[in-house]
């Protein structure tokens, strides 16, 4: 009797595990198939559109990749985007760290009002101010990569939230001990807090670096109205598909470009996954 019950329970657990595995495999398929499709479609050699109604190419070839690099300005757009992300990463990381440290550790009269101000500013749709920003940049002839860098970096301070949450968890006694030994605020920040903040620094770098690659709204306004030389990958690739006449011809090239854009970022992301997860889970729970 006892033994039978034990066995049936084990059987039930096995069944539920089997169900879970099935679901997980299904989920993984649903999540991976689109990316798999992008790769397959980018290797299609013949000129058949999406409406042809089959998946695997009749003729496998790297033709679309060759077109991408020789006949389009993709490489230039890629360079623009890379430049923007690298510079923005540096600026944004510095700005976020400075703001977070000031708001977490220093006590000054304007601290609370400042935090409220940023909260309120965050409630305005960011795009609202973009028209004005466009005119400012246009009057300085900055409707190019420089303008984009300025726009992305300038509002960085408002992303202090997660980083401040991290600084808040570092014990204050560390600061105080150093202050008693005669260290200045500046020394405390550089010698004590920053070395401890490695995970959150990596998180900030990672998110700052990835953001420009997927951003369309601001970049389409700032660089999308001018010369094609100034496009980022998002703007350029959007233009390929925007026009119904171009769409069929450019779709395989779009897929090839998507593969080229995604691979390095995904690799970077998987490599630094741990820090991303730490940042996301840490930042969301502390309200």
């Amino acid at each position, binding site marked *: 009797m006892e033994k039978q019950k034990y066995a049936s329970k084990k059987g039930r657990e096995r069944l539920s595990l089997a169900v879970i595995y099935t679901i997980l495999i299904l989920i993984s398929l649903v999540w991976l198939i689109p990316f798999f499709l992008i790769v397959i479609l980018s290797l299609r050699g013949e000129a058949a559109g999406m409406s042809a*109604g089959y998946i695997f190419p009749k003729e496998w070839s790297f033709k679309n990749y060759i077109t991408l690099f020789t006949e389009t300005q993709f490489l230039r757009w890629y360079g623009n985007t890379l430049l923007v992300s690298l510079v923005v990463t540096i600026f944004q990381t510095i700005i976020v760290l*400075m703001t977070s440290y000031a708001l977490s550790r220093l006590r000054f009269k304007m601290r609370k009002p400042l935090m409220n101000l940023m909260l309120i500013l965050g409630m305005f749709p960011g795009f609202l101010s973009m028209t004005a920003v466009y005119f400012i940049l246009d009057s300085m002839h900055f409707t190019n990569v420089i303008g984009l860098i300025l726009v992305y970096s*300038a509002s960085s301070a408002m992303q202090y939230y997660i980083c401040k949450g991290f600084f808040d968890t570092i014990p204050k006694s560390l600061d105080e001990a150093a202050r008693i030994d005669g260290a200045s605020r500046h020394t405390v920040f550089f010698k004590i807090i920053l070395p401890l903040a490695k995970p959150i620094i990596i998180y900030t770098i990672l998110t700052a670096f990835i953001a420009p690659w997927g951003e369309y709204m601001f970049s389409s306004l700032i660089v999308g109205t001018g010369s094609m030389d100034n496009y980022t990958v998002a703007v350029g690739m959007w233009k390929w598909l925007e026009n119904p006449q171009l769409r069929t011809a450019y779709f395989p090239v779009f897929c090839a470009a998507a593969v080229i854009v995604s691979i390095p970022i995904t690799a970077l992301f998987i490599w630094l996954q741990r820090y991303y997860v730490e940042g996301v889970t840490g930042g969301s*729970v*502390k309200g």
Partner: protein
Amino acid sequence: MVDLEYLKMSPWGKFWFNFKSFFKRLPSSFVAFFKAIPKKLYKLWLAFAGIFINIGKAAKDGDWKTRTSFGIMGFGLLARKQYLKGILYLVFEILFVLYMVFFGWKYLAQMGTLGVMGQVEEWDPALGAYVTKVYDNSLLILLYSLLTIFIMVAFVYMWYQNVKGNLLSQQFTEAHLALPTSKDDIKSYANENYHKTLLSIPLLGLVIFTILPTFFMIFIAFTNYGPGHSPTVNPFHWSGFDNFSSVIVGGISADGKEFAITFREILLWTIIWAFFATFTNYVLGMVVAILINKKGVKFKKLWRTILVMTIAIPQFVSLMFMSQLLADQGLINSLLMNWGWISKPIPFLTDGTVARITVIIVNVWVGIPYSMLICTGILMNIPADLYESARIDGAGPVKAYMKITLPYMLHVTTPYLITQFIGNLNNFNIIFLLTGGNPPLDVSGSTGGQTDLLITWLYKLTVSDGQYAVASVIGIFTFIVVAVLSLVLYNRSKSVKNEEEFM
């Protein structure tokens, strides 16, 4: 409700109780919010009055050096050998005067009209031909006069600091205390003034690229800047609340555009969308997290990595690809037709209702990895003995989920849920890259679409229609919606937090 009774409730019951009491308290918390306003105004008034008291004190108690610094900033400091500070104040004042005389004043003077004469064809005797001359550019007038106002405010602040600083330095001298030297001043920027060192650059960026443009667009909402008025050719003017009334009251404008019905439709859909997008992502993300975290499931890291990978791939890539897959002539429809499952394409993105369902489902696909991560982190923190005791009491997995997991998660992740909700109200990428807001709304003269959110409509009004003034009004309304909702929701999350800790 007695406290004891409250404590006896199950976690789920507690949540439900809080939920109900929040809505019961809603009217009174609104009243409390407005009641607090006079108090805050009084405080503001006190702070304001304090400024004048200080200035008055400086005028009464100050010696001639301090009084001179009312006109020549930093004079008292220079006279008392605080050279660095004194020179900085003086330089600032000179720069300000130069700016006002040569630049700021002429724009500020035109702020009332925003320019009268636009582009004019004029006979140029030197060239012997007609040339186009631009006189007033309304945009630049508005932009630079706002900038001038900002700079004037900064100047008044600096002037006040200067008066205070001069008086302080005088008081130090009278009390025979050592004045801080320039070296001390510099050093203080690594210590008690360190926040100024750290925050000056971030704030400068914020003022130029966020605060000034936001003010600018708020002002634009009160002008008639639209398709009929290009800033150089035909200057635009102040038009009071005209744009607000065309968005609220409605009617078809002179150029055959309709805004009020569109606004109502889009606002409603925006809120519905934000609710469903947040809710589906959260619940399903939690389910996936629970499945992966279940004891005995192997390759946890692999499952998680597969999902996390999709966060890394730039959103415009995956979303634009999806929109191509789901198009009427797209791969999915043509595959299904080839297999003979359907005879005509499913209108994933071209029928209003279907498109709305499609965007919510695709949003699940995009959002689950993220909410799964959040939930995983928290699930691991739920004490295992809670489940153990629930099992001993005979609770099955579903009951354990309803009684332990869900209430715990809701309790811990409320702030996250609120930010997600607010974020979804302004979720540009999903809608714009997937449907572009289409199919169009069935309203004559409307520029909106059935899947448009306020933010994508705002984008279209600005970029493709040139309806800048109306777009600004929509932006202001979006702000109001977001602000009201977050005020209400955050209030509630605070009350939950303060009232009790879970378990």
